[in-house]
């Protein structure tokens, strides 16, 4: 039998299988069809030179498409109705992602309301860092407190006298400055990293649909 005709035999089988799988959730249907297509390709490659009988025998071993579709439906039935729900990324998930860094309390509530993230992910979203970008607003006040409004140097008679932050040794001033910059950098980056992590987890959850 010509290779083209053998290919047609396989194509007909897969088309019948696709039809028989109608009614199964699209992603699950595509997954089953992809896997069986791959399985047929592997087995055909293993056969090397193939006759019509070889391919018919292979398809027979894989099974009647109706039987495979029945198995798929039975399995869905066994899995329970709840797991039939398609995992769609909805407004709650999108708002949770956007609001967690900016309007932290609202974002976190949505994060915990959504079934898309596991408990661990929700903890990460809540605790790293607590408050999203809100603590960033406290940085100017902290800086002002450390530097102090009266932090200045001067002296009318030529002698240099300093008060407040400026009266600290230079190395302490540098250390505090470096720490402040580091805290600001962390406060800027961590909410972004958390949002990226939650997005990655969300995509993974969404991809694991039936």
């Amino acid at each position, binding site marked *: 039998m010509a290779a083209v005709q053998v290919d047609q035999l396989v194509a007909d089988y897969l088309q019948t299988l696709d039809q028989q799988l109608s009614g199964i959730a699209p992603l699950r249907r595509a*997954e089953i069809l992809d896997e069986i297509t*791959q399985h047929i390709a592997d087995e055909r490659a293993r056969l090397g030179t193939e006759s019509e009988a070889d391919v018919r025998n292979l398809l027979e071993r894989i099974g009647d498409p109706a*039987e495979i579709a029945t198995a798929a439906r039975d399995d869905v039935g066994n899995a329970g109705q709840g797991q039939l729900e398609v995992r769609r990324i909805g407004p709650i998930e999108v708002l949770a992602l956007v609001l967690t860094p900016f309007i932290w309390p609202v974002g976190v509530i949505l994060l915990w309301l959504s079934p898309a993230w596991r408990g661990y992910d929700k903890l990460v979203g809540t605790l790293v860092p607590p408050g999203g970008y809100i603590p960033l607003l406290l940085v100017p006040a902290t800086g002002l407190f450390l530097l102090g409004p009266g932090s200045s140097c001067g002296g009318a008679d030529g002698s240099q006298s300093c008060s407040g932050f400026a009266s600290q040794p230079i190395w302490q001033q540098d250390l505090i400055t470096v720490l402040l910059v580091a805290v600001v950098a962390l406060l800027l980056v961590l909410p972004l990293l958390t949002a990226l992590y939650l997005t990655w987890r969300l995509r993974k959850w969404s991809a694991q649909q039936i």
Partner: protein
Amino acid sequence: MQGPLRHTVRVPIEGMATQMRKGVVEYCVLAMLRHASLYGGELIQRLRLQGGLLTSEGTIYPLLSRMRSDGLVDTEWRETEGGSPRRYYRLTRVGQQAVSEFKREWVRFRTTVDGILELGEG
């Protein structure tokens, strides 16, 4: 005069075997994944060697798909030599627990049934 009472009962042996297979094949697949990640074709080969657990090879894929959505296994794509990437199945922690529980339950079940069958023979 009335003859000996005879019952003709058709034993649905094939249906029974199918039901038994359906009940255990999932756990056999999970058990096969305990030590290594495998792709569908490899699982089929191993089940084929064990004999009789799969009525048709293609039915393993709906089963794997459902096991994945149940969180018993997860998957990763791996490149293969000279071939297209394959979806490898690996056991999750939930899957490991399921195998352990099944093993305990199976030993108890088998012991009970063996005991009853031996009693019947005795």
